Structures are given as C-alpha cells and as structure tokens.
C-alpha cells in the first residue's frame, strides 16, 4: 500500500513557522523546479530580503488566487519511500471549522511550536482537536531552535511542558524533534547543531509511519448505505471493520435476524472478499428486511444496540448547546434524534480551563464530556474499538459538533 500518499495536517500557533516549514520541505525534497526557486530568490532580493521559505507557500497560494492553474504536486512531496500531501488547516480561530474539516481527513498530524514562545493558545486548541479526532500519528516539532542558540535546556523544558500537556488531553506524540525550518536543521537534513539530540529528523519520523494499520482480524461490520433494484436487489454499503467474505454467516442489526452472504457484487465483477474500507454490494441467502443504517455483523462479536453512551464532543456552533434539547445524531449511515442528558465537564479549548462540572450548556469552541440518549437505539462501539462506529456529528441545520464515543451504556442485550 505504499503508493497511497500519506495525508498530513500541520497545526500550531500562528507565526510558529508553518509556512516556513512547508517551504523548507518542498525545497529540501527537490519538489520545486530550479526556475521556481530562482523566481523566489529574485523576488526576495528585490525586497531586500534573504531567501524566504515562508514566501514559497504564499507564492503558490497567490498564483492560485490569480487563476493561474497550479497543480497540487506542489503541495505534494516525496521521500524515497512514499508520497505525502499536505492538507491545509488554517490557524485562525475564525476558521476552526475549516481546520477541523481538514484535520479529520489526515492520516498524521504535525504540531509546530516556537522554541522561544512555547505552547500558546492555538497550539492547545489544535492539539485538543487532534485528540478529539482520535489522531494516532503525531509529531511535535520544536521550531526556531536557531533563535535560542540550539539550547538543550530550553528544548528539554519545552519537551517536558509538551508531554504534560499532551497527557492531559490524551494525545500521544510519537516524536518530539528540535528543528529550525528557516535554517533547515532536522527537517530533511540532519542537524549538526544539536549533537545532544539522538532521534530522527522530521522526514525520517514521517517515513516511519505505517498508514496501513488496518486490523484485518477485527470483527466484521458492514454498514448499509442503500438498497438498489436495477436488475436485481443489491444491498450496498461499506465494510467498516474486518473483512467481508462470500458465505459469511452474519447477524443483521438492529433486528437480530441471521443469514449468510450469498454474493458480493461490483459492476461486472463478483469478488469473493472485500476488505475494510471497501464499498460493495451484497446479496443474502435469506430474504431479510434491512435499510440504510442497518449493520451486518459477525454473529459472535456484535456491536452494541443501545440508546445511551458517553462521549467527548467539541461544540462549534455560535449558539450554545443546551442540555436536553433535541438535536440530530449521525454516526456512519445512521441518523436519529438525540439529547445530551448530562454534561459531566466542560473545558475551554484554548486555555484548557475547566468551565464547570455538571453544567447546563456548552458554548462555542468548548470541549465537553457528555452522556447522550438517542430517541431510538443505535448501533455503536467505542471509538477505540471501531472508529467508524464510534465517531459522530451532532447536526441542527449544519454540523454543530463532532464527537467520539468513549463508553457504550448497553440498555439491552446485544442480539446473540
């Protein structure tokens, strides 16, 4: 699966060096043509400045604004092992919905922190959001090491501050790396200025990430999207966990009916298996009732069918969320009304200050631990077990909140 590009999101406080980092990455990996580099050099010298890596990204964006077509290979770059693509995640708090949208598509995240300024408001908020999204592959970059004379003590103290903070928000960083984007230290090229640092460069760290953490031994769950009757009845959906195979015995949820997969159907093909993530059609040996939102499950290990669960949510609606107010819950292909029946704790996502326990509302950009009750039972699992059945949005007219399920409260036995 190495030909699949790794999608990367870079977050952090404004001016902590994201643009410069991207410019440096494109430059050091040879992703820019000689002519482009020369053009930028000329522009910078016309401005009486040193060659600025930060300008590279501005330049690309500006050319796009002017309607000059630029293909995104410019925000792609390669190592010898794989291709990478950078997802833009704007920093300003006004664009939080754009940031979370972008981050939700990423395979891996980079948090960039200015060595002089340390962890700031946006750093915290962004890291919090990454934690909410269940981001597993995180690299922290301590940037502008050149400005603090590559001082080991300062690095160690920020690293410690970082680890404390990340633990509080339940986010694991695989690497914490001292870099200087502007000088090039430890971005792609190993730095000679930090002999006390024994870890990998940023580039090496990313190359070590394995995209395919598909656990094929996970129990089967197939989420139904629709039913077609073009020439024959085909149930279409997506394998959200495990592998779907012809002749698999399955339990249909929420009804509990049992049957067997008779065939897998693609246009002009009938494969004998479908892996996690695959969208496919199926037919069953028995005529069972099912509809969008139903799940076909491994009969021996079924997800919960329940109306109550605990979750972490991030509220991003100007109008505050009021306890016990109906709102739409969407998880995988399911959609029902629900209510937040208890708000256990509510935290300001910038300051990480606790707003209160057992409160009655959640305001814009606050993070809360809640208990939700749905109007009718839903088929869910803890996010840590099956991400696609453990992540959801709360919707009024548009998405008001994103959330992940931390604890399922079974209100009836699963159908075995």
């Amino acid at each position: 699966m190495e030909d699949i590009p790794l999608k990367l999101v870079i977050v952090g406080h404004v001016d902590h060096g994201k643009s410069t980092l991207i410019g440096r990455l494109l430059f050091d990996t040879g992703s820019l043509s000689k002519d482009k580099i020369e053009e930028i050099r000329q522009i910078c010298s016309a401005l009486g400045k040193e060659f600025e890596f930060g300008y590279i990204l501005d330049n690309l964006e500006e050319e796009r604004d002017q309607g000059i077509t630029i293909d995104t290979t410019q925000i792609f770059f390669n190592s010898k092992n794989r291709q990478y693509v950078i997802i833009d995640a704007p920093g300003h708090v006004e664009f939080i919905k754009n940031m979370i949208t972008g981050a939700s598509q990423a395979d891996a995240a980079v948090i960039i922190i200015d060595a002089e300024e340390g962890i700031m408001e946006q750093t915290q908020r962004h890291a919090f959001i990454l934690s909410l999204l269940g981001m597993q592959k995180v690299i922290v970059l301590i940037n502008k090491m050149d400005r603090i004379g590559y001082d080991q003590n300062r690095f160690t103290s920020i690293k410690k501050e970082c680890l404390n903070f990340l633990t509080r928000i339940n986010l694991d960083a695989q690497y914490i790396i001292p870099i200087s984007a502007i000088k090039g230290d430890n971005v792609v090229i190993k730095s000679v200025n930090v002999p006390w640092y024994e870890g990998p460069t940023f580039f090496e760290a990313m190359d070590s990430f394995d995209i395919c953490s598909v656990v094929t031994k996970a129990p089967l769950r197939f989420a139904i999207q629709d039913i077609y009757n073009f020439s024959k009845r085909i149930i279409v959906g997506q394998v959200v966990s495990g592998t779907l195979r012809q002749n698999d015995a399955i339990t249909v949820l929420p009804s509990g009916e049992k049957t067997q997969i008779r065939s897998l159907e693609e246009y002009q093909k009938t494969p004998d298996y479908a892996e996690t993530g695959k969208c496919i059609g199926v037919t069953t040996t028995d005529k069972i009732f099912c509809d969008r939102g139903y799940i076909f499950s491994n009969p021996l290990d079924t997800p919960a069918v329940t109306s109550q669960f605990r979750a972490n949510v991030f509220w991003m609606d100007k109008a505050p969320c009021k306890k016990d107010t109906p709102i739409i819950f969407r998880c995988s292909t399911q959609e029902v009304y629900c209510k937040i029946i208890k708000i256990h704790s509510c935290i300001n996502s910038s300051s990480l200050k606790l707003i209160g326990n057992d409160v009655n509302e959640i305001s814009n950009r606050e993070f809360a631990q809640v208990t939700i009750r749905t109007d009718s039972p839903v088929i869910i699992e803890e996010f840590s077990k099956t991400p696609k059945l453990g992540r959801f949005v709360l919707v009024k007219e548009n998405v008001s909140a994103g959330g992940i399920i931390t604890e399922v409260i079974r209100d009836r036995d699963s159908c075995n």
Partner: protein
Amino acid sequence: MNALDVLENESIYIIREAYKEFKNIALLWSIGKDSTTLLYLIRKAFYGQVPFPVLHLDTSYKFKEIYEFREKWAKQWNLNLVIVKNNEALSRKVNPFAGDKLTCCGELKTEALKQAIREHRYQAILLGIRRDEHGVRAKERYFSPRNNQFQWDYKNQPAELWDLYKNRESAHEHIRVHPLLHWTELDIWSYIQREKIPIVDLYLARNGKRYRSIGCEPCCNPIPSDADSVNKIVEELKTTTVSERSGRAQDKEQAYMMQKLRSMGYM
C-alpha cells in the same frame, strides 16, 4: 486496494450518499476528462445505470469533437441527457469574440446552470471539480452548499467531518457534490488508462500539440506535446510536472512579478 482503488472507492461512496440523500439530483457533464471519469464512476456505482439526468451546459461554441462524443456516448450509455442553453443570451448574440470572455462564460454557462436549477429544482448537482484546480485548502468541501446566486461564503462554511456529509439542503440552497475532489490530474489520467475510459481525442497530440483542458473552441489553447496516446500522457505528466510550471515562469516579465508583490502586500 492500491492508491487508485482507494480513490475510486471514496468517490463511489460519495456518489451513493448523494443519490440516497437527495431525490432530485443531476450530473453536470462538460464532456471533459474529469466529468467523463465521474460519469464512468457513476455507472460503476449504480451497476451500469445512470439513474438521474446528465446536464450539458451547451454554449454552442464547443469543439465539434465534443458534440460528436456527447451524442455517441449518451446513446451508448443510455443517458437522460438534458442540454442546457441560455437561449435568451444567445439570441442577444452573446459570444466569446465580442471581447469580454468573463461575461460570455457568466451568461452562457453560469446563468444557464442557474436557470436549469431553478426550472428543475435540483437539490444537488454532481461535479468533477478537483482540489488541485482550486487549491489545496480545507475550505473545499465534498458537499458544498450554494445559495441562489451561487454564492459561497468560504469563511463560514459548515464543518465536514470524516465521511459524514451534508445531507439536507436548506431553503434557497442547492448542494454541490464533488466526488473527485481529492484526485490529481495524474490520478485522473492513470485511472483513464487503467479502466480504458473513452475521452475526446482533442486531449491527444496532433501535429505537436494537444489540449490539456477542453471547453469552448474559441477560448482553448493547446500546449506543445507529442503525447498522442493516454499512456504517453501519463508518462508526460509523471516526468514533466515540475518543468511544466517552469515553462510559465520563464514567460514572466519583470512587471508581472512586481504586480504580484504588490497584490501580496509585500510592497
């Protein structure tokens, strides 16, 4: 699944979601390589059917090869083809030669689409837009709402998390669905190559030139190229993407560079 399989899979999911959630939906088919790829994916998603109308915004100035291709494949694929024309503007002789191409596009394409949406009350439109045409920005959404005036407040868009897409339009709104958003130009050509998708032969080189994008004949300019087959186009894209940009850079004049600087607030 390899990289193209993953892209194909994600697009099919989006197409099936849009069809399920919006009863009144249509595909905008420009007859170009991207929307033809999208049409091909739609046929895969629905087991050989295209169960909704296919709109062609016909300015009447398209290449004849485009009209021929359209007629041939609409018949072969049994499409419910709806030809959309802004007859009112055409009767006023709006055309691309009168000078202002922006106005011509606006009237013959954008206005025509607005009229079609109003007339048929489409709730959602499928388009072959890709991110690398509009920039890699998180502001692009797979399901993107537009108001009556086709306006779009990109600073205030709804969030779109994971694969949970907007499935209800508000009043006075339609939703643009972009199943190819995450595909690059190279991905499109690689997929065309793999699946042997038919494309208008204007894309293939003749006499040292080929069209990289096709639309209305008066406004399209070919690029120098010897790639006279899909295989050669894929090779060309793989090896020359970097130098294609440098070609443009060499054409730039001093004045243009300064204009850019000014617009960026650098001076």
